[in-house]
């Protein structure tokens, strides 16, 4: 039954639980004696907290704890420790948590919140990241110089708003520009956007009088929650117990640590009673972090034949008020920030910049959705100006086996093929013959114009060099297995893929492989975080090793019972048998808990397989040049789209999206396709509709579904076609690499390129709203008219 489970389309194993409402999320849970918490948030983007009076709130019957920042001597942060649990001294964004109440009911907590009086003294805010790094800009963190951070990896600059400056230098850009036939300089922007998981963040925490902290949370990374709490509270890891049941979507927004410390502190103050906090939808938009905004400036020098000779890139990240994952996004977007192209001379500066916006965090794509908007629009603009087909132009410059990346990594045959992905999608939309000017004019007159466009992408997991994970395979009495991992399946379907891998290696029916659903830091094996599209890759490898460990243990027992050397034993059909005499066998069931001879003697014991995997060969990057090996595996991809624009209204209809990814090996086609279709539609949201809008004083206007629109069933293209290229990743499980984030990257650029193809206007800012298209059309008409008048 070789390879029978790998590549098979198997529905999610937890499907029954989910279609019947049995699946329990933190939202659905309650503990005896549980209190409910509410948060008071700041109405100002930047203000000094003059005083807080909570006495009235504390008097309200049913209120068990009221907390303000000054009571909490803890600081939090993933890579740069810059955040208080509740604002202390000043608030840095509108929506920031200032005080919190735990009470007998949500209603009492809500009333108590209204009784807390806070006096603020407004400070000058700063919102634009480019303005925020000017010398006279107001400082968001005056004490940046005293903050602790991960040294050797990040580079915050004291006395500025720069939380991290990532530098990359390859070759000599000045010489490259000198040798260039033409140079192109452009600026592109993308606003902040929200993840919008359907389940908002939810947590139940209890800080018992015995000093233990027990947590149920809707988190992507239980061990990261435990580790960060341990560091912040200076409590041993063993005294913190984090459990994660079903999670209603994350997309990176639940990757770090959010409401857990606050719930724990409220519980402590309330004498150890469990406290539940569920973020309201408004808090999900306004208090909990979103995707960082980006302003990108790119200068590209090219030869007459269309080779990119030099590229100078500056990324200004709008990190908002706190660094969170933002500094690592700046770093990841730095080392891969020129796209999957071979460019000899690159100078790249990626600044993660504090502003007085709600802060940024990880979101599907981790910087790549943002910067690919710039890179892939830029490539199309250059090709067009040079009179070269954008497909041909990219093909000349894309990474191929033998190419050297901007960090000095050599691309190999088994790294994956971005050129194949591009070829696949370009063929699928029948790119080729372009419309004549007359045909375009004719279409324009009719009011609806069609266009085609495409864009490429790449991404590797952005993670520390020492990222590791582990897996346990426990045999049950009946010969079935429980597989325990600590990455979370919050909808991606990884557990199903991992079960397929386990069943494949153990050569047993997948029905007998039970993935233990609830993650539990007390009993589960360590895993760093469920982020970066790395779970199938790393978790899969750990499971393969755990399965082999279990098989080895079973062979040990069988070797004695069957009186055959271990290396002459084989497994199959839930049996361990002698290779040359398959009739001599033991079943898994017979050895699962130890084998018993007819006379009662027993050997072996419970079979527990153990497997681990740690990222191999990654290096810290040179702080001055960014050179080194940052990437475990690269997943390449490309999208091509067909659109129609109504030139009278600017309305855009997305008719077709074709996407191809080099996933190495498709482990589960049904679920892989699900990732692609879902990711593409999420990418369409970012492309066309989504983006934070603020008042001039920094109040978020788009903090509800009334004002922040995500795609509905009526907004999706007629066709979304997922295609896969399979260049096996030699160190991936069965050759597989990750594909969770990638479908969302570069959808916008493909659409932006198609818009130019259709109507000859360049959109440089996201989202590409109808209004923006309409304004661009009007602007072009004015320009064309002026040109005509001048000619006449």
């Amino acid at each position: 039954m070789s390879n029978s489970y790998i590549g098979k389309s198997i529905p999610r194993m937890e499907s029954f639980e989910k279609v019947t409402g049995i699946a329990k999320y933190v939202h659905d849970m309650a503990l005896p004696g549980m209190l409910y918490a509410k948060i008071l948030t700041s109405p100002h983007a930047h203000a000094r907290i003059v005083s807080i009076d909570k006495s009235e709130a504390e008097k309200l019957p049913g209120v068990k704890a009221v907390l303000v920042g000054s009571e909490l001597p803890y600081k939090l942060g993933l890579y740069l420790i810059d955040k208080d649990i509740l604002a202390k001294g000043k608030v840095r964004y509108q929506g920031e948590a200032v005080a919190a109440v735990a009470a007998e009911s949500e209603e009492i907590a809500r009333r108590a919140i209204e009784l807390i009086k806070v006096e603020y003294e407004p400070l000058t805010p700063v919102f634009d990241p480019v303005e925020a790094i000017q010398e006279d800009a107001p400082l968001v963190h005056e004490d940046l110089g005293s903050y602790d951070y991960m040294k050797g990896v990040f580079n915050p600059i004291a006395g500025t708003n720069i939380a991290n400056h990532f530098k990359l230098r390859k070759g000599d850009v000045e010489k490259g520009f000198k040798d260039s036939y033409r140079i192109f300089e452009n600026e592109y922007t993308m606003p902040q956007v929200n993840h919008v998981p359907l389940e908002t963040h939810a947590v139940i925490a209890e800080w018992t009088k015995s000093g233990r902290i027990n947590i149920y949370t809707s988190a992507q990374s239980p061990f990261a929650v435990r580790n960060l709490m341990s560091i912040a509270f200076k409590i041993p890891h063993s005294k913190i117990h984090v459990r994660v049941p079903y999670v209603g979507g994350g997309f990176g927004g639940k990757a770090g640590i959010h409401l857990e410390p606050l719930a724990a502190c409220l519980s402590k103050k309330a004498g150890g009673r469990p406290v539940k906090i569920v973020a309201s939808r408004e808090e999900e938009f306004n208090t909990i972090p979103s995707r960082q905004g980006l302003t990108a400036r790119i200068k590209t020098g090219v030869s007459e034949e269309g080779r990119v000779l030099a590229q100078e890139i500056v990324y200004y990240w709008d990190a908002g008020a706190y660094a969170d994952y933002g500094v690592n996004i700046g770093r990841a977007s730095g080392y891969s920030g020129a796209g999957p192209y071979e460019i000899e001379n690159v100078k790249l500066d990626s600044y993660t910049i504090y502003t007085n916006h709600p802060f940024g965090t990880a979101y599907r794509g981790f910087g790549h959705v943002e910067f690919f908007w710039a890179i892939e629009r830029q490539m199309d603009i250059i090709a067009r100006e040079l009179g070269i087909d954008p497909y041909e132009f990219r093909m000349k410059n894309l990474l191929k086996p033998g190419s050297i990346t901007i960090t000095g990594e050599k691309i190999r045959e088994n790294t994956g093929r971005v050129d194949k992905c591009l070829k696949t999608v370009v063929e699928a939309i029948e790119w080729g013959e372009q419309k004549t000017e007359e045909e375009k004019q004719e279409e324009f007159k009719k009011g609806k114009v069609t266009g085609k466009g495409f864009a490429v992408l790449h991404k590797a997991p952005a993670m520390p060099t020492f990222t590791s994970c582990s897996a346990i395979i426990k045999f049950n009495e009946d010969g079935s297995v429980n597989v325990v991992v600590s990455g979370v399946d919050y909808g991606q379907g990884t557990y199903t893929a991992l079960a397929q891998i386990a069943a494949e290696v153990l050569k047993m029916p997948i029905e007998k492989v039970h993935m233990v659903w609830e993650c539990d830091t007390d009993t589960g094996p360590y895993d760093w975080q469920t982020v970066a599209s790395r779970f199938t890759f790393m978790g899969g490898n750990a499971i393969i090793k755990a399965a082999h460990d279990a098989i080895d243990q079973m062979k040990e027992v069988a070797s004695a019972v069957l009186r055959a050397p271990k290396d002459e034993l084989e497994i199959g059909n839930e049996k361990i048998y002698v290779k040359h005499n398959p009739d001599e066998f033991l079943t898994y069931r017979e050895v699962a808990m130890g084998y018993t001879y007819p006379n009662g003697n027993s050997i072996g014991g419970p079979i527990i397989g153990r497997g681990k995997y740690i990222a191999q060969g990654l290096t810290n990057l040179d702080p001055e040049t960014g050179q080194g090996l940052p990437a475990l595996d690269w997943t390449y991809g490309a999208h091509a789209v067909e659109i129609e624009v109504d030139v009278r209204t600017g309305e855009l209809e997305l008719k077709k999206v074709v996407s191809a990814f080099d996933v190495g090996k498709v482990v589960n086609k049904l679920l892989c396709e699900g990732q692609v279709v879902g990711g593409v539609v999420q990418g369409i949201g970012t492309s066309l509709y989504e983006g934070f809008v603020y008042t001039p004083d920094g109040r978020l206007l788009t903090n509800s579904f009334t004002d922040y629109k995500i795609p509905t069933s009526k907004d999706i293209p007629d066709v979304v076609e997922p295609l896969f290229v399979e260049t096996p990743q030699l160190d991936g499980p069965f050759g597989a690499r990750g594909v969770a984030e990638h479908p969302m990257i570069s959808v916008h650029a493909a659409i932006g390129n198609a818009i130019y193809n259709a109507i000859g206007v360049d959109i440089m800012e996201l989202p590409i709203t109808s209004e923006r298209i309409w304004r661009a059309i009007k602007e072009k008409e004015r320009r064309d008219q002026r040109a005509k008048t001048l000619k006449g």
Partner: protein
Amino acid sequence: MGREELLKKEITVTVNGETFTKSVSCNKTLLSFLRDDLYLTGTKEGCGEGECGACTVIMDGKPVNSCLVLAVEAGGHEILTIEGLSRNGELHPIQEAFIRHQGIQCGFCTPGMIMSAKALLDRNPHPTEEEIKDAISGNLCRCTGYKPIINAVKDVAERGEKR
């Protein structure tokens, strides 16, 4: 009689075929009544403002956002929630189709989505694709991109399975 009691009202409501008589606060939503009083947590809350559809249940044959219906308004009516859809462990054809097509990822929108689909197919067993999109347009899903959900509903309609 205390103030709290004055603000309460006794209602009789049928949920998934079972009749309940309970005293509820006048400001309690149907969503909260189902989840907190009857422990039917399959119905989810995604926004509490009637914008996301995660709390969709069927009231007298029509899909409603249960976060916008007061429990007292549900008195005297028949409510069907996701828990009432499968019978004796046997899934409803819509649930089976959601599994076949994997119109599920994180699962949080799934109960509401299935209830909207059920209400549609009950009143229109053979909807067009546009009608399906219309019927679920009030149910937000961030994971699937809707395609597999639409395909699942189409599949049920084509097979003509009913229950």
